[in-house]
């Protein structure tokens, strides 16, 4: 008996001997290349940095994510400390990134750099997880985190609150730009996880009524510097 792999490939090659007609299209769809850079048919992502920031703010508000804009790192640290106090956080885990270390140092609660192999139970017990990100997509209000630059896979999703600290220069207009940037940065060595986070975790499974915080964070904060 031949193996499953070659059987399946044989079935596919046999099936494709008869060509299928091309779909009925409205335009020429750039002859099927969705890989062209500009996609002027998708939602707008802004023509310049200012335009993108405006769209981003609007999208995040609709997603019920909180955008906190600060001028510099010192005020980012202050904003985070205030947030921690008002929310009465006791334990906070953060990604040991050079941007985050000084900012997290301003916190008065217990902090923990969750970057080596860690106890999952301990992370679950944290009130908040603080990470950086790869980029931020204005078009959709999505934040791209990765296992390489955002403290692994669990830090951005297991604690009850997720705080992202980023520089305004990390905002890109659209999804295509964010994907291209990640590839340019990591090359062949892509992180084992790249995740677009678009608002706090949500579900509509009960009577299609929106509830935030299904399994992931109930609250999502973006502290944007500059």
């Amino acid at each position, binding site marked *: 008996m031949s*193996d*499953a*792999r070659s059987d399946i490939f044989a*079935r*596919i090659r*046999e*099936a*494709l001997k*008869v*060509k*299928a007609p091309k*779909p*009925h*299209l*409205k*335009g*020429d*769809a750039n002859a*099927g290349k*969705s890989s062209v850079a500009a996609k*002027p*048919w*998708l*939602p*707008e992502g802004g023509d310049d940095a200012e335009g993108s920031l405006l769209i981003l703010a609007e999208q995040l508000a*609709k997603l019920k994510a909180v955008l906190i804009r600060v001028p510099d790192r010192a005020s980012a640290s202050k904003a985070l400390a205030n947030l921690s106090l008002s929310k009465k956080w006791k334990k906070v885990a953060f990604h040991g990134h050079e941007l985050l270390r000084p900012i997290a140092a301003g916190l008065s609660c217990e902090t923990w750099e*969750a970057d080596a*192999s860690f106890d*999952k139970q301990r992370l679950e017990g944290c009130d908040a997880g603080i990470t950086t990100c790869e980029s931020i997509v204005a078009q959709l*209000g*999505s934040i791209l985190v990765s*296992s*390489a630059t955002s403290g*692994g*896979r*669990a830090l951005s*999703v*297991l604690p009850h609150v997720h705080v992202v600290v980023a520089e305004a220069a990390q905002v890109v207009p659209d*999804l*295509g730009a964010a*994907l291209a940037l990640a*590839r340019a940065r990591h090359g062949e*060595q*892509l992180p*084992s*996880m*790249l*995740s677009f*986070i*678009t608002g706090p*975790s*949500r*579900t*509509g*499974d*009960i009577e299609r009524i929106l*509830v935030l915080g*299904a*399994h*992931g964070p109930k609250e999502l904060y973006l502290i944007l510097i500059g």
Partner: protein
Amino acid sequence: MSDAKSIFLKDATVNAADGDQRAFIRKALGGYYTNRDLQKARYRDWEMARDVASMAKWTAVNDLANVLEKFVGNFERNGGVVHWARDAAEARAIILKIAEDANAKAIVKSKCMTSEEIHLNDALEKAGYGVVESDLGEFIQQLRGEAPYHFVFPCMHVKREAISELFTKHLGTAPTDSPEELTMIARRHLRQLYIDADIGITGANFLIAETGQISITENEGNARLTAALPRIHIALSGIEKVVNYLDDLSVLLPMLATAGAGQPMTCYNTLYSGPRKKGECDGPEQFHLVLLDNARTRLLADPEQRDALHCIRCGACLNVCPIFKNIGGLAYGTTYQGPIGSVITPHLRGLKQWNHLSGASSLCGACTDACPVRIDLHHHLLHNRRNAAKESPTLFDRLFHNGFNFVIKRPWLFAAGGRIFRATLPFLQKLPLPYMRAWMKTRDLPKAPSQSFRDQWKNQNV
């Protein structure tokens, strides 16, 4: 009549008469229509986006062998292990073997329709593993012991009171009528299960050939946790999910969310390539991908309906389908409900037993209009009807069509037949004619005109 058909007719009749349930489903979908339209309006050209999305899938599906080969090469280079399954039994055996080799006990799953297709939970439970569905809707359906009602909204037909009772019975929690509190009960219950599980099983929405990544779309964060905390990650996917380029996702991900749930993007869209890498602080030690055929190549072999493999499982066609809204998702008796299910199930499970689903359609075309990847759904329902009549015509089909063929070629016989038909029409109403009974039960035949159309035409001297 096939078993599947008689069950379908019985369930569909009962459900269509349940006005209360139908109103509940309509209300549940109300918010979806509004949000979908708001999000679609943000697209500068939705129709062009549909063109691009459908071409991205068309290009990959029509070159499936090469694209799949490229994907697998890159996936393996990233450190993942690929397994091939010709059918459901092979896929189950592969997953059982991985679990056995890993000496696993507890398994947590995120939503994966392909696993429903191969009845994975039954197999795992029989083998003694504890399996928990982590998507809220799937979790509720698992507790109810019922198949998903809708492949995107699995428990949209269940009222909050019933969910509260279910949780009280199985989890011992206090009754509540708040969806928020019910969600938090499930959240608290499942958190520990992710941490304790040995294996996490997920599906895959897209396989990206050029990078060897798999893409998973979700809202709740349960798939993220399933792929982060257990020491083994198994993903199960149909072979048709592959696309050529990473950049294809910049069109497909937002469209999937908008068409399927009226969102700009679903909450988590995650790309996985391999297990935990050197220098990363968490993630699974092993990453397995089970690639399933299970008759997908049969659909591939039909060039007329091949585009049904472009489906990205957004569920838009269900949400707009008058049949789905009236008979509900469970009556279909299929893994994939609604128009797309009616199109593909005959290919996956046999035309003779499942062609009745293609008859349950008003051919209004709302599904085709809603499809973000332009699958010609309502025409495929007609293609299935034609193929079924060709493959195994019923006696009635044969008599009727041969008879019609004979009469229509002979004008004098057609005229005579018309006269007889007009004269006997009042009596036909009372005859228990097969095929007519269901129609006549609730309707009267129209009154016969005194003259045929041809006579009227002639007498007008046009």
